[in-house]
């Protein structure tokens, strides 16, 4: 561990790896040793995420969340309506391509006819191809992937827990303007757009470009670049001369986050002096701590699908302890919650059968239990499989860590917006 300038424990990469390994060990071994006492005693659920390749870090975070979820469910009595049956997690590696993800899904359903539900597959395109398989196998799949396509294909066995990308983008702007007004007492009038040209970033800025005028915003700068950046000086120079009231900056590559944010600090635009809003977890993932001094991140805002929220403190503390991660974040918390949804659906279904679980998911409507782990605090899926109250979560860096500032019932802090 390193002690950073402010006396905060900052784990090194090695600590994180050791933590991960320790967790993997502790999570896996009991499962193997237990070795299925009786057939009715355990119910198998699957996690299909990238465990190898360039997305494996995210898959590992989801795995840690799922393993903690399994542990908590089992400690708290398993599934009572199934005689206290315990959940058992089966892992499947979605790899680094849609083809591998689909093959892994096929393997999952072919070799494990007794799975009752699964969660995955991190990247939207992986989820799309994996659900093609699970749909045909009638295996319910929970996902935090954002893609609009996931629940618009007429599928009956996929359940999307976060807001769709299109909706997130549309809803984020008015939410942020309201937050700004409340915090600073004045609505922003000018906006700058600085985005990379990846698909998710472009789809996030699209409605802002279209609707800015409707919200009384003037676009004073609009720049698109191709990642990775080699130098951010020119871009930030433009921001400085444009002096926007607010900047929208969805960045997906961590090295670009580092370059842009360090340059903004250098130019005196950091720490909320130009309130800056990103999209996705690149601006809030714990890997950032290894790349940038967290003090420089102060004030930056990002819009995500799920985050550490009020009421989850005990779980987050335990997660931090076993995983060595500095916070839980979207991937871990959502997957943790997915295990609880599976448990609640099993409880409702009263049978360890994938079709019964799917039917229970279609009709479930709870505001307690698993609902605690999702923004909107309600688990109810509409006819397409989209969770009804799913909406964007706004996260802001405060005191060297990203904290939830919206929605209100999840927020652990007030948004910080400089008065001009």
């Amino acid at each position, binding site marked *: 561990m390193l002690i950073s300038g402010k006396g905060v424990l900052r784990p090194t990469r090695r600590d994180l790896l050791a933590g991960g390994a320790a967790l993997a060990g502790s999570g896996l071994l009991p499962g193997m040793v237990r070795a299925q006492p009786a057939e009715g005693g355990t119910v198998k659920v699957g996690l299909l995420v990238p*465990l*190898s390749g360039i997305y494996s870090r995210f898959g590992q975070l989801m795995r840690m969340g799922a393993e903690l979820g399994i542990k908590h469910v089992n400690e708290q009595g398993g599934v009572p309506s199934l005689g206290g049956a315990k959940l058992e997690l089966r892992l499947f590696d979605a*790899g680094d391509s849609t083809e591998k993800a*689909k*093959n892994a899904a096929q393997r999952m359903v*072919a070799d494990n006819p007794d799975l009752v539900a699964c969660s995955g597959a991190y990247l939207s*395109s992986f989820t*799309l*191809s994996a659900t093609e398989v699970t749909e045909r196998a009638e295996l319910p799949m929970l996902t935090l992937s954002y893609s609009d396509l996931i629940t618009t294909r007429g599928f009956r066995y996929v359940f999307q827990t976060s807001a769709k990308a299109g909706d997130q983008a549309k809803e984020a702007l008015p939410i942020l303007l309201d937050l700004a007004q409340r915090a600073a007492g004045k609505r922003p009038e000018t906006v700058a757009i600085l985005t990379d040209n990846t698909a998710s970033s472009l789809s996030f800025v699209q409605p802002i470009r279209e609707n800015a005028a409707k919200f009384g915003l003037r676009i004073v700068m609009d720049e698109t670049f191709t990642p990775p950046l080699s130098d951010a000086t020119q871009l930030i120079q433009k921001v400085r001369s444009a002096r926007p009231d607010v900047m929208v900056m969805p960045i997906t590559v961590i090295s670009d986050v580092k370059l842009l944010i360090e340059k903004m600090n250098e130019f005196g635009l950091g720490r909320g002096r130009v309130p800056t809003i990103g999209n996705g977890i690149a601006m809030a993932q714990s890997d950032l701590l290894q790349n940038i001094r967290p003090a420089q991140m102060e004030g930056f805002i990002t819009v995500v699908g799920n985050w550490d929220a009020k009421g989850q403190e005990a779980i987050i503390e335990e997660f931090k302890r076993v995983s060595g991660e500095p916070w839980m974040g979207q991937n871990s918390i959502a997957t943790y919650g997915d295990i609880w949804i599976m448990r609640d659906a099993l409880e409702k279904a009263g049978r360890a059968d994938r079709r019964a679980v799917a039917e229970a998911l279609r009709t479930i409507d709870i505001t307690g239990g698993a609902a605690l782990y999702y923004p909107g605090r309600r688990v109810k899926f509409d006819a397409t499989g989209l969770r009804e109250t799913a909406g964007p979560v706004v996260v802001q860096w405060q005191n060297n860590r990203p904290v939830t500032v919206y929605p209100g019932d999840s927020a652990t802090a007030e948004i910080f917006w400089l008065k001009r």
Partner: protein
Amino acid sequence: MFRALSRARMILPVVAFCAAYAVLAMFVTNSYHQLTLTLVAVWAIFGLSWNLLSGMTGLISFGHAAFFGLGAYTVALLFAKLGLTPWFGIPVATVLGGLAGLLIGLPTFRLRGHYFALAMLAYPLALLNIFLWLGHQEVSLPLIRERGWAYMQFTDQRVYILLVVGLLLASMISMRVVERSRYGLALTAIKQNEAAAEAVGIDTRRLKLITITASGAVAGMIGGFHAVILLVVTPEAVFGMLISAQALTVAMFGGVGTVWGPVLGALVLIPLGETLHARFGAVLPGVQGVVFGVAIVAVILLAPEGLYWKVADLLRNRRKTGAAAPLAAGALPSAAAMPCGGRQPARTPLGPDAPVILQAEGVSRAFGGVKAVQEVSFSVRQGEILGIIGPNGAGKTTLFNLLNGFVRPDAGRVLLDGRDVTGLPPNRLCRLGVGRTFQVVRPFARMSVADNVMSGARAADGIEEARARARAAMQRVGLGGLMDVRAGTLSNLNLRLMELARALAGRPRLLLLDETFAGLGGPEVEKLLGVIRGIAAEGVTVVIIEHTLHAMVRLVDRFVVLDHGAVLAEGLPEEVTGNPAVIEAYLGSKWSARAGD
């Protein structure tokens, strides 16, 4: 190729293989294994498509994902946006893949070698970004619950296996037919030496365009089918680097240049990759990539030409030792033992009124500031043996390239039979009866002498005719006894003779020989002299380049001496060798002074 295979022997093994594959697959009930079996055939066909272009012509493509991805997107977009079934989409994908091949080939074939390979790399990378930009990050093929078969959607995955094995069978048979056809013959000639292929009358540009079109069509077809399997098409999944690499990997692992190579490669690698992924993916994430990589490296080290060739070699060796090696006992009858020296038809002396066959008029060519050939004029009469000599760097090879169309002259004209042929491409000149050998012999080591020679037989008149010509040419140079020997085992002399036979297989009236004696010892030179004299005696006009004089003096009727790109002297051998200017050019002024004494 030279040894004709019956239709049955050509096609039966392929049919048997595909039938066995399909029948065995019908007994597989695990849907994951069914998927793997489908993918094996998908990647085998993609490897075959790559093999058609790169394996057969030697033009390495790092960008076959361009065709594959276009096919996949064609099927996906037609289905998702217009509701058109893949039954229709896949044929469209095939056509578009072919068109893309043609469009990509047109500019890219201006490049050669590594430059071609690298340029090909750019197309899928560009297309990937274009499809991102067009907003097709994820195209999902709709799920059809009723009458799925009309949209190529089947609940029983074995139907996919049957479909793809059908495609595999069609691909393998057509490639097998191509491999053994005149067209395949011409492709091998291109792989061997593109310039030489031009020189034996193959329109290489046209042929390469046809090939990349066919290859693109196959890749587009299987890309389209893969979209049906994948169901979600993303730019990375179909245009990605790994897709292009997949084609190379299966082909190179299995064996390049044969129909069985990519099939064998896919048959081993795809299930291996999947098994490793299944076994280790969730336990030791990432280790599957290491094992897979090590396996490939090991095979490349142990069987650098691929599994197929390694197995073929092993079988050949076993057969050889088993059959008490009659060839070894016969001690590879070298050309020396052939009666070429004895059968020495007397040349009829050249009459003074023999017509001029080739004439150069003030031909010049400069490369930048270097005037390689300046104002060279001379003529060659029918039936003559003309030697063009000169010290190294005198411009001899450039002059040759000007004469047979590889290089266009800056000024001057070249006349063949009195007709202006300046700037005609080599393949056209070849059809007019000009043959040529090259200074550097690049044979196909794996192919038999006969097949090597046959690649020179002008492929325009049918495969049987080509065989007859090749046989005649080999007998003319005395390689008749070595027809089935692999070219890789030939001596330097026999390689030269093979090169000569290859030029002769094109039935030239005028033969341009480029430094044929280079690297040969005394007795070998004698044999070669005899062969060339024999060729001339049959009425073929010979123009030969050399920088060594001693053999030439006994061969040629007349010399043209070049120095610094210009004609220094011209005349009978005895005149030229006594000419002080020539001696000075070769040996320096000291020797010319002594010769003058």
